[in-house]
């Protein structure tokens, strides 16, 4: 449990620290101004995590006061869930009103009473820990509902959500989005020859290979269904998409999974269809998927283990 104490009075800081330490809260960080406190928190978020569980914030401070600091914290995505207890010597209704409006969860009046301080800190920390637990469960649930159980990459549901979001954003920014459909060549023969367990292992390896060619928040690799995979590139044109498709094709080929009944070659390969479009009111994402499917069909017709493209805007 880590507690940040922001107070301009050194006597207040020292007192709070001693009282909390005595109760067993060992990780107490002291800041002599709101600016210093925010600076500490920002350094933590810059490292990607914030370990502070509670902030005790003095209300009246020179320069930036507790209310202003509270408002700033509530605007930060990573910091907004840290509970803030306002500490104030002026328990005027107007001040408390402002403190709660700014997002404080509770308040303690000065002069501090040890029992009150500890009771409020304990109850807010308990709430925080329950909130953290709930968030972790929600994250786990989200993971379970959006990942494919076998391969561990995004499932169809996440794919649909991602395409929808990319479509809307593309429409707003008039930006091209690309879609690749990938299909394992003659997978039925593989299953018939090696069995379904080998088939599952093959799907997992192919999924990993396809996943390895995407990166960043604008790209998603997903299992579309059966032995079909998809890659969404939310800000790439057809030329880039074809390059990504070729990298995926090579990545799968270099897995070197033996496939003795394939008419294409000695190992597992994929055919890839790529399509691009600038989303508009006149088209839908279904047309993009259809176009990528058509390109995939061409790749199959032209001998498999290759990438074909389909440009909707320049038919």
């Amino acid at each position: 449990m880590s507690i940040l104490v922001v107070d301009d009075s050194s006597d207040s800081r020292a007192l709070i620290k001693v009282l909390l330490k005595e109760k067993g809260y060992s990780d107490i960080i002291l800041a002599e101004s709101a600016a210093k406190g925010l600076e500490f928190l920002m350094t933590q978020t810059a490292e990607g995590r914030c370990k502070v569980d509670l902030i005790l914030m003095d209300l009246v401070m020179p320069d930036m006061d507790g209310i202003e600091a509270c408002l700033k914290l509530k605007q930060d995505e990573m910091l907004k869930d840290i509970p803030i207890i306002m500490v104030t010597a002026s328990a005027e209704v107007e001040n408390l009103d402002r403190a709660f409006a700014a997002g404080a969860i509770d308040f303690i009046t000065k002069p501090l009473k040890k029992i009150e301080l500890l009771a409020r800190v304990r109850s807010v920390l308990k709430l925080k820990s329950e909130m953290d637990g709930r968030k972790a469960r929600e994250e786990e649930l989200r993971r379970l509902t959006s990942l494919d159980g076998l391969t561990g990459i995004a499932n169809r549901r996440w794919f649909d959500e991602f395409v929808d979001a990319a479509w809307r954003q593309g429409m707003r920014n008039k930006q091209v989005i690309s879609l690749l459909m990938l299909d394992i060549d003659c997978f039925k023969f593989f299953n018939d020859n090696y069995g379904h367990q080998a088939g599952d292992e093959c799907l997992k390896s192919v999924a990993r290979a396809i996943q390895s060619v995407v990166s960043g928040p604008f790209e998603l690799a997903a299992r579309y269904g059966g032995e079909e995979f998809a890659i969404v590139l939310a800000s790439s044109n057809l030329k880039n998409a074809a390059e990504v498709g070729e990298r995926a094709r090579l990545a799968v080929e270099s897995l070197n999974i033996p496939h003795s009944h394939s008419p294409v070659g000695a190992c597992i390969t994929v055919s890839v269809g790529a399509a691009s479009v600038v989303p508009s009111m006149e088209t839908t994402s279904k047309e993009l998927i259809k176009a990528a499917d058509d390109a995939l069909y061409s790749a199959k017709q032209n001998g498999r283990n290759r990438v074909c493209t389909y440009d909707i805007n320049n038919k």
Partner: protein
Amino acid sequence: MKARVKVDQELADLIPGFMDNRQSDISCLTTALQQGDFETIRVIGHTLKGIGGGYGFSAITDIGAAIEQAAKEQDIPKASRLTEALKNYLENVEIVYE
């Protein structure tokens, strides 16, 4: 008159520093009173109000609140009397740790 104050044993290490800070407050108050600097007087009064009772010195909280009020009312004689009262209190207080 000796005022006896009970202070938590766990705060014993903080008391010397606390007392030093009150001496600085008194010199700041004295200067501010001479200059008619009500803002400084008010801030010190507010701080005293906030911390006194937390350490066990509820009298310091009371005097602080009165100083803050006197500053708001721009009442120099009253603020001077209160500063004097704070000084006397600090000179005569007897601390018992328990």
